């Protein structure tokens, strides 16, 4: 073993206590006074460092550090909890607002549909009032100039009442109608959106609410509809 090998392999070892693997290093130590001096200095240094290490080996952070850290820990997690609660509350409020908005919109939409139906109802019902019920029920030839129900344009056809044949067998009485009044009634054929039937207390499929259908209304002498009849094509 030369000096360089000794410096790499044996300088930081305890050669006196070492086993047979350090025999070559010990041999070199006996033969080389420079390395022996270096080894001795190194040994003293190691002992000094060990002593210095033992001096502070029991040292630990004072308890006030733990107190501070625990305080910080509590503050940190309290703040986190507060943030989480605030976040949850914010999102809940937003979700509630959206739901409330949706409910309001649905209600408004439904009211709007009913309003349209109501608006169409009086248009149709006022027509028989302007004409005598007897006149309305009288069947006139289509080419007659005095015929009030003759449609001029498709638009007018929708607003002006059509007088239907009086076969009251298939009429469904409307809620609140008085059966005795049926004798003086007039049958009026109107075109309205299927959604408007909801106003008469009838079930309406929402998917087909916007369809236009023909309905025969049995209108009493006071102008109030008493019953209605759906032609076969509209009832499907």
């Amino acid at each position: 073993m030369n000096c360089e090998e000794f410096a790499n392999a044996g300088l930081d070892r305890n050669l006196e206590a070492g086993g047979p693997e350090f025999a070559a290093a010990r041999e070199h130590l006996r033969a080389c006074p420079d390395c022996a001096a270096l080894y001795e200095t190194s040994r003293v240094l190691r002992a000094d460092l060990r002593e210095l290490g033992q001096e502070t080996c029991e040292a630990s952070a004072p308890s006030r550090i733990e107190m501070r850290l625990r305080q910080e820990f509590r503050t940190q997690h309290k703040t986190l909890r507060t943030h989480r609660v605030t976040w949850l509350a914010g999102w809940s409020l937003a979700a509630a607002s959206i739901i409330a908005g949706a409910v309001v919109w649905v209600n408004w939409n439904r009211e709007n549909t009913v309003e349209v139906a109501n608006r169409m109802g009086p248009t149709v019902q006022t027509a028989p009032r302007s004409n005598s019920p007897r006149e309305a029920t009288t069947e006139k030839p289509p080419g007659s100039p005095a015929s009030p129900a003759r449609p001029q344009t498709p638009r007018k056809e929708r607003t002006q009442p059509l007088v239907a044949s009086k076969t009251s067998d298939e009429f469904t009485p409307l809620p609140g109608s008085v059966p005795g009044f049926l004798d003086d009634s007039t049958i009026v054929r109107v075109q309205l959106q299927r959604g408007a039937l909801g106003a008469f207390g009838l079930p309406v499929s929402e998917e087909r609410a916007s369809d236009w259908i023909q309905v025969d209304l049995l209108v009493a002498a006071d102008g109030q509809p008493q019953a209605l009849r759906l032609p076969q094509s509209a009832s499907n």
Partner: protein
Amino acid sequence: MHIAAQETDDVLLKRSAKGDEDAFTQLYWRNQAQIYRFALRMTGRAWAAEEIVQDVFMTLVREPKKYDAARGPLGAFLYGIARNRVMKHLERQPREFSFEQKNAEGDAKAIEAADNHTPAHWAEVRERRERVRSAVLSLPPEFRETVVLCELEEMSYEEAAQVLECPIGTVRSRLHRGRALLLAKLEILREAPKRANASR
């Protein structure tokens, strides 16, 4: 809440991150002493070591997700933070050396045990220890931390390499170089009083 002693640091850290204060306290007591000693031996100042310990664990409280268990044990992670803080401290105060001998509560510690040695012997021991301390504290930081970990903390090369995040060969060479520097500094420190006496 009872925390089983065998629970790993990782589990404790997860529980601590969820707000379990006992888990955090357990973690603190498992690791604080070695971090404090490392900081004290690196800076030579008790107040600096306290600050560093506080910073290290504050990081653990505020950013527990910074620790990645796949990269090594929690102890090495804490040492890493402590090293950064020590380096910052040394950059701020590069020339101040004062190895205060204080115990955990900050009081002066009686380090010599009562025995039959003479006061002159103890004076000599104290002087030699002071020289070694000054020599360690005057080492460049990269050599100092290797000497502190391998010689004072008595870590193996593997452990030191994990803490210092460098290969074992680097630890070995830094230690070798650190020892050589220490010897040179101790020689200078040993000769200084003699030269001072001779000049009088």
